């Protein structure tokens, strides 16, 4: 099937200033980092104003786009010519279209709330200004990623968010575990980056351009072989950024960062970049069923693996991280299905942005109350003391398990249904995933907010300050009504980027057989967790003797062990080998040539003896040589 590609219209009026979206937080990050201590006292306010300003601007653009006809909703803003080399011309430009604008709204909207929350959360951190500067840097890079109009500029944003993520994960760099987690995230991401770079080079070679427009229009001319290659490279990139199997191992460790970071980067925005990339590259995946199938498989495997890990963890943030992996697995699954799934992938991405940020910030609020303890076995019965946190968290909980009328209910059910239609086997697995999700999220709720007090001594839980709970409330409202509000609209909105929607969905739930089965499975999961964690007391210490399944889950499904044996050991053997070669072979050769040159220098210097007669003789000999050389050059 051939996608209808809308050629972008040039920006007019205010739209020409779309670069401000990126420039405001980017400039603010630079200001805070360069001005240094001077801005210590008020830097966080400035930093919070930046994404809010971008959000307002994005809202204006969004309303502008809404008021246009469908054909005019793809707007390009040419900024400048970046590289001109031979026939290649790489421009830096912004592409505002229905897809990018919803991302911009999500990033700046949720980002603003998280900035506000961080004012409270980081109030006593000595490096608060630096933290906010990094947050702004992240927002700027993420906006560049989604607004770029070609793959190379996207790559700049892609690397920018990688850098910001690294800086923020290891923000508390004095903790060795945080420093290591930052490095791990960065290095694992590099593997994915290699895929994106390879894909960009291939696109340059194929199309002499990396612009989305050129790639979309020319994609049907690709041979299947190249399309498959490109598809797999883009999938590799997406796996790295979105923590999909087999590049998932960094996300759990990334929870070492401050909780707002986990909410902003590792739940709501950055980890969805892979989904964005796959949807954006839809034209390429259209040409290659095998790469599409690979995306579906990766998504399904990850959604199950994440759910599995979520069941076994006691660390509240790691449960949420496993759940993030799992939910992004759903999005990948939808994106892999093709045009029929794009709208659902993005829909779920948006609702997930709300409810997962909501829950991460809620977890932060709980940790705030519990003196930064993350072990759920030390929680319990917190619903009375943290009423706001509890209520808002409950909204997120109901949204993620897919309780009727809540956000996840709409978005996740669509994906499960679409999966059944496309690949029944995947549909069954996605259904099981939904049940497991309900199980581990209920477990989290029970262990945290219900049951007995299992607090450590000296912990006096208290509700968080107002700057922290206001964002929670707003996000909770999003978790509640986000699905209803978007359900009837998002599919048609995304049609210009190739999404296919059948029928006219409305805010009313559309009851189908699969929908009913899903609800039954979810109810079973909830019931089982309720039985296990509410009826029986929760042990204070994690039991040692557990089934192999639990052990595997606690060990992140042995992801690190696999990496250790498959990559790290061979790599360090190789590096030792190269180091040996370098020490015994290259170094002596280089040093030897240096000494050789010095030796020549010493010998040649003897001619420079200071006697005019020698110099004169040299000249004469030189003149003769030149003459002879001239004659020889005639003969040759």
């Amino acid at each position, binding site marked *: 099937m051939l996608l209808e590609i809308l050629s972008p219209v040039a920006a007019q009026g205010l739209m020409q200033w779309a670069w401000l979206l990126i420039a405001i937080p980017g400039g603010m990050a630079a200001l805070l980092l360069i001005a240094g201590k001077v801005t210590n006292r008020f830097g966080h306010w400035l930093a919070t104003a930046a994404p809010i300003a971008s959000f307002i601007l994005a809202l204006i653009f969004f309303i502008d786009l809404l008021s246009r006809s469908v054909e005019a909703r793809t707007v390009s803003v040419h900024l400048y010519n970046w590289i001109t080399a031979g026939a290649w011309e790489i421009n830096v430009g912004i592409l505002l279209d229905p897809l990018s604008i919803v991302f911009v709204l999500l990033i700046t909207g949720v980002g603003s709330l998280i900035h506000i929350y961080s004012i409270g959360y980081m109030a006593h951190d000595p490096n608060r200004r630096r933290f906010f500067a990094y947050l702004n840097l992240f927002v700027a890079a993420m906006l560049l990623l989604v607004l770029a109009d070609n793959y190379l500029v996207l790559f700049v944003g892609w690397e920018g968010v990688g850098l910001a993520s690294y800086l923020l994960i290891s923000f508390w760099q004095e903790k060795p575990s945080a420093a290591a987690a930052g490095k791990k995230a960065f290095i694992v991401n590099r593997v994915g980056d290699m895929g994106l770079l390879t894909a960009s080079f291939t696109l340059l070679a194929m199309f002499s351009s990396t612009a989305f427009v050129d790639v979309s229009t020319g994609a049907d001319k690709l041979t299947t072989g190249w399309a498959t290659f490109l598809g797999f490279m883009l999938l590799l990139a997406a796996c790295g950024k979105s923590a999909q199997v087999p590049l998932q191992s960094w996300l759990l460790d990334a929870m070492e960062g401050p909780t707002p970071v986990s909410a902003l980067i590792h739940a709501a925005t950055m980890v969805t970049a892979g989904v964005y990339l796959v949807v954006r590259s839809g034209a390429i995946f259209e040409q290659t069923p095998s790469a599409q199938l690979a995306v579906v498989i990766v998504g399904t495997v990850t959604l199950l693996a994440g759910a599995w890990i979520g069941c076994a963890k006691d660390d509240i943030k790691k449960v949420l991280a496993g759940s993030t992996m799992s939910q992004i697995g759903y999005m990948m699954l939808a994106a892999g299905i093709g045009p029929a799934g794009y709208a659902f992938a993005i829909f779920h991405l948006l609702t997930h942005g709300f409810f997962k940020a909501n829950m991460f910030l809620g977890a932060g609020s709980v940790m705030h109350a519990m003196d930064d303890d993350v072990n759920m076995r030390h929680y319990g019965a917190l619903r009375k003391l943290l009423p706001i946190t509890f209520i808002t968290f409950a909204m997120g909980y109901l949204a993620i398990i897919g309780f009727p009328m809540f956000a996840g209910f709409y978005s996740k059910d669509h994906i499960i249904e679409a999966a059944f239609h496309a690949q029944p086997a995947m549909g069954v697995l996605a259904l099981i995933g939904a049940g497991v999700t309900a199980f581990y999220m209920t477990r989290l709720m029970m262990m945290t907010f219900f049951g007995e007090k299992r607090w450590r001594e000296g912990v006096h839980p208290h509700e968080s300050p107002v700057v922290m709970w206001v964002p929670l409330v707003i996000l909770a409202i999003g978790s509640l009504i986000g699905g209803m509000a978007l359900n009837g609209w998002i599919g048609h909105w995304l049609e210009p980027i190739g999404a296919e929607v059948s029928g006219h969905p409305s805010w009313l739930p559309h009851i189908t057989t699969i929908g009913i089965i899903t609800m039954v499975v979810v109810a079973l999961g909830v019931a089982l967790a309720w039985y296990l964690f509410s009826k029986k007391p929760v042990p204070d210490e994690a039991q040692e003797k557990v089934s192999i399944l639990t052990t595997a889950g606690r060990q992140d499904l042995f992801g690190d062990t696999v990496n250790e044996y498959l990559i790290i050991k061979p790599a360090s053997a190789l590096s030792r080998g190269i180091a040996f070669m370098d020490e015994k072979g290259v170094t002596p050769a280089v040093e030897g040539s240096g000494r050789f040159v010095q030796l020549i220098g010493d010998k040649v210097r003897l001619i420079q003896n200071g006697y005019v007669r020698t110099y*004169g003789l040299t000249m004469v000999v030189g003149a003769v040589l030149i003459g002879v050389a001239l004659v020889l050059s005639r003969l040759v």
Partner: protein
Amino acid sequence: MMLTLFEFIPPSLDYLLLAPFLVVLGTACLGILVEAFVPRKPRFIVQLVLAVLGLIMALVLIVWNWGSPNLADPWSDVIISGTVMIDGPTMAFWALLFGFGLLAIILFAERNLHAGATSFTSSAASVPGSNAETEAADAGLVHTEVFPLAIFALSGAGLLVAANDLLVLFIGLEILSLPLYVMVGLARHRRVVSQEASLKYFLLGAMASAILLFGVAFLFGHTGSFDYAALSRGVTFSFGDSLLLAGIALIGVGLLFKIGAVPFHSWVPDVYQGAPTPVTAFMSVCTKTAAVAAFLRLFYAGLGGMRLTWQPVLAGVAILTILVGSIIAINQMDIKRVLAYSAVSHAGFILVPLVGAATLTSGMMPGTASSVASIMFYLVAYGFAALGAFAIVTLVRSQGREVTDLAAWAGIGKRDPVIAVIFLIFLLSMAGIPLTAGFVGKYIAFVAAWQGGYWWLAMAGVLGAIIAVYIYVRVVQIMFFKDPDGPTATITQAGPATWIVMILCVIGTVAFGIVPGPLLDLLQSVSTFILPAGS
């Protein structure tokens, strides 16, 4: 019917086009009068002002003439009966010469470093170490003659770059050289070394001039004319032209001597070391520029027909020059000798695009620099870096005397980071590190050679550049990372003259490294040699 044997055609003189040169020559002559008639006390300042004003006026006139229609029109070139050619390259090289000359002359005027005296001896005529010398120093005498001498040298250089006739070429070369022989011997300290350098330079220079003159004679013998126009007509690829070959060889040697190419470079380290440092700065830039310009015009406009013969030979000389200059510089323990050998290697790098010039305009693709433009740019980059570096050498002192021993330079980076960092910028530019003008210069030089078909020369140049980096890295290492053992030198507070030069050189080095485009376009627009008319 009368047969006119000798018809006198009055030479056409476009005074406006000639004006920059005439102003410089006039300034030099005025300088002599000032020397004779102005009282001793104000003489120094009068000479300085006169020299600076004269050069600035010349530069203004160059700018004035820049857009002159005559420069672009190849048929209005007959100036002084075709013996002098005022075309785009002449204007550009004049601008280079007079601009850098001006900076060097400002360096001459630095008096803060010697307790109120210049770098020049009080009495050149006195025997070193004699009572006469001490008396002259005590009396506070100064040799203000350096100003008119330098201006005379500059006017000779100006004539050299415009020369369109073998005899004018020779005259220009001599006017350039003779004042330099004197200036080299005027050092205030280490006068014996200075005088030895002066004598060496004179003897070898005289020999080179003789060789060049020999070449001129051979060429005249082959073509029957001194005129480049006649030369270019008479030079064709044919056998039985041994006179022509000998002429090319000998005249080439004479000019390569001035450029400082191997194997005619022996004088460079000795003379650069012995000369007063400001004079070294002057020579390292202005002499090289003038000689390269003269070489370009003679070998392309005059001897372009023999290109296929002399280009490979010159390529060999270029490689040899780069290698010998770089390799010997590595072992030097005297900063002035390091810079001298580095100047030799730079001469080699300049020869690279010179060889690669395929045609007069070099038929480049739009947006790429022609050989001539890249040579000009290289000279600009080198000029800023070399002048600035020598300016800083004058500052490093111990007990009032310049310390050029590198061992004493150890740890200067810690003692005076500002000056050391400025020096670092010049060194990086000479090494050709990106974001400095030197990088752009080397890059376009190699590109020009590559496009001219000499890809192997460009490759050799790149390899040589890698070796050459070692020279500068070594100095940087000594300055910043080595702890001093033994006597150390300190950096004397520079006066405004040295500061002006240093700051301008830093600006030039960095600015043209970051945005080389405008300058390149400008040079590109004046890079076409005009062939003499009437052929």
